């Protein structure tokens, strides 16, 4: 067996196969419904961007107004796509790492349906004008207890797996997954409870940004990092460079992230220490992100060429590169001299999109490219589609980021000149919004192939082959000599 990993015993393989079988249905359920939500979110994103550029378009139809479409787009992206993809990845990865299979797949699938039902209800409510206009918490307030309870019941299985894990050292990804599992309910329930209490309206804006920042740093980023820490050693076949460094990164992030959020409101009507603490902890968190990036860099050293072939490796490491970019930009934005040109404007949308799509979604795609062949028993149909998925996603997210940076800068400079009418700040940003439209068109195009391939895999129509689908081999064709050598050495794994 030229493609068998050296040193893997038949018992290991049997065990892996059994674990994969046990989680197959819930994980595929989460991946496919996440992909469907991503499709919806992408379409809504394109329409929202178009409406921002041409506000008079379809202005007779309230269903297509920006104020409804945009929050519906963001909520579908976060709760529909990202959280479900994340849950699927969490379940599979935790099962593999703890060597504990899932005993009750039906339980997860039922809860997955409830989650989907709740999100669908929420998105429809927002879309039909019953949202409550709190960024990322737009769902009508009666929905959050249901979503929180569903999430808790799902992650209980992950925590149980961790509790009954096989003896041995705990891998760093497990720590991130356990942390993300418990952090989200804390952040989500806290934010909703505080917002539900009839407090100051100003402070509810503050709570909302605290929630946004912590959803990014306490859920999206930990899961993206867990994916990278898992995929890199799996594909490269080396241990992670340093466990102490990984722990250092983890605890830095854990300690710093909860203080963030208010730095989005420098100069706002809050006691000055609140944004200051947020800004300082964003800079402190960069310490942890740098440690993560360094750890992965040293693990990869000398093996970067594998990124050419393995989609999982390329997507997840691209996500990590974007994570470093995101953390550096966020830290720079914590200085008032920079922040006053980049806050309260479209740059924040660019940065949030970078975190959700550039960091989390790209890492999640990497994990999905790794997981799905193992649980469906067939290979991805077409390397070319994976390649297009990668490149057009990259173009899309970078177009959004650069465009929103330019838009935000011109908008921010105009807002800073207090004697300039507000209208001017809207007008100067308008040309750059084309980048948002273009970016989402790229992302939509890039994902078409992904949806199609995932659907084929779902119905078992993937490629039947011994070799993985790599990014630079056409299906059915013989691998190049170099890749064949890589496969033989067991170093190239999809």
């Amino acid at each position: 067996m030229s493609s068998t990993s050296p040193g893997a015993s038949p018992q290991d393989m049997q065990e892996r196969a059994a674990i994969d079988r046990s989680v197959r249905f819930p994980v595929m359920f989460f991946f496919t419904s996440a992909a469907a939500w991503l499709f919806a979110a992408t379409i809504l994103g394109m329409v929202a961007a178009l409406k921002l550029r041409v506000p008079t378009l379809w202005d007779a139809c309230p269903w297509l107004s920006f104020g409804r479409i945009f929050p519906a787009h963001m909520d579908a992206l976060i709760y529909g796509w990202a959280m479900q993809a994340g849950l699927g990845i969490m379940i599979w990865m935790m099962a593999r790492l703890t060597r504990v299979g899932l005993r009750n797949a039906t339980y997860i699938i039922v809860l997955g349906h409830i989650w989907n039902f709740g999100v669908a209800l929420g998105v429809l409510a927002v879309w039909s004008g019953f949202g409550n206009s709190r960024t990322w918490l737009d769902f009508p307030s009666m929905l959050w207890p249901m979503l929180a309870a569903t999430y808790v019941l799902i992650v209980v299985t992950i925590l149980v797996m961790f509790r009954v894990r096989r003896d041995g050292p705990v891998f760093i990804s497990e720590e991130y997954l356990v942390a993300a599992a418990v952090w989200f309910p804390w952040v989500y329930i806290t934010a909703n409870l505080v917002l539900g209490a009839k407090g100051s309206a100003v402070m509810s804006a503050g709570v909302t940004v605290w929630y946004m920042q912590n959803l990014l740093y306490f859920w999206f980023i930990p899961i993206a990092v867990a994916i990278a820490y898992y995929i890199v050693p799996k594909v490269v076949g080396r241990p992670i460079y340093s466990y102490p460094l990984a722990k250092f990164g983890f605890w830095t992030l854990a300690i710093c992230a909860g203080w963030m959020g208010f730095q989005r409101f420098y100069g706002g009507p809050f006691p000055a220490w609140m944004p200051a603490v947020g800004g300082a902890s964003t800079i402190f968190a960069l310490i942890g992100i740098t440690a993560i990036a360094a750890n992965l860099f040293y693990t990869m050293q000398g093996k970067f060429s594998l990124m050419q072939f393995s989609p999982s490796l390329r997507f997840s490491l691209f996500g990590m590169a974007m994570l470093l970019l995101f953390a550096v930009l966020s830290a720079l934005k914590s200085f008032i001299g920079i922040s006053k040109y980049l806050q309260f404007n479209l740059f924040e949308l660019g940065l949030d999109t970078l975190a959700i799509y550039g960091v989390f979604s790209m890492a999640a795609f990497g994990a999905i490219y790794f997981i799905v062949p193992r649980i469906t028993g067939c290979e991805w149909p077409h390397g070319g589609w994976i390649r297009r998925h990668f490149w057009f996603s990259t173009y899309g997210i970078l177009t959004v980021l650069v465009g929103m940076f330019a838009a935000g800068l011109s908008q921010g400079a105009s807002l800073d000149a207090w004697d300039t009418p507000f209208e001017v700040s809207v007008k100067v940003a308008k040309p750059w919004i084309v980048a948002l439209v273009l970016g989402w068109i790229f992302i939509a195009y890039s994902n078409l192939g992904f949806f199609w391939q995932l659907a084929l895999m779902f119905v078992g129509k993937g490629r039947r082959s011994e070799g993985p689908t790599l990014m630079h081999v056409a299906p059915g064709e013989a691998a190049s000599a170099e890749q064949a050598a890589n496969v033989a050495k067991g170093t190239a794994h999809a």
Partner: protein
Amino acid sequence: MNLDYQTEGARVSTIHHAVRREHAEPEAGDEPVRFVWLLIGAALLIAGGGVLGTYSGGFSQDQTYAFAYYSGAGPRPPGANGDDGSAKGPWIDVWMAEGKKVYGNCVACHQAGGSGMAGQFPPLVGSEYVDGGTKRLAAILHKGLMGPITVGGQSFNTPNLMPAWNTLSDEKLAQVATYIRRSFGKLPEGESGVVTTEMMKSAREEFSGLPSPLPTSELAKLDPAAHLPGDQVDLETGDSIGAVPADGEEKKVP
């Protein structure tokens, strides 16, 4: 533990290739944390501490702005046409209070009371440059000053030169000029001593060609009594009351 699924016992040959070819579940090495990471951490801690120290306003619950957020002057001269202008008293009080803040730039040399330092820095109290027309005063503020000069009977010829303050906005310069004239100057009967932003703006344009710092020989060429052109303002509201200059002034305005 022996879970049900483990007893399904698939034969190895039927296991999917992807599962067969993959590496064992990952592990982590035990390289220690290098010193350089602690250094990077320390550098970022210092940067974050700087943010915390500079912007936190001493962690007071009452402090909203712990920093100059706006790069220009305030969002609007408080009370000038603000919604709570009445609560802040007459416009001139606010204008003078702002001027006093800007005067913080001047106290090191001219002293808080405007007395200057004998032999080194000219006084503002009893200075003909403060008491006289606003044009010369504006020229000094915009361009700075160097060279021998006699102020209030004392002569100064020290290497200390006055820096140009044209980096401040016209509004701030107008506020400080008003503050100096009304606090330290001896103004002619009926003159309010107010210098408006508009006047300072005209001075900036008019003197843009002059060298900086301005030699005292150049300053001597300016008419000592000439005022800057511009409307006078109502001291209560800050609104313009038209070009009503003090007595005997109009002939000097070009």
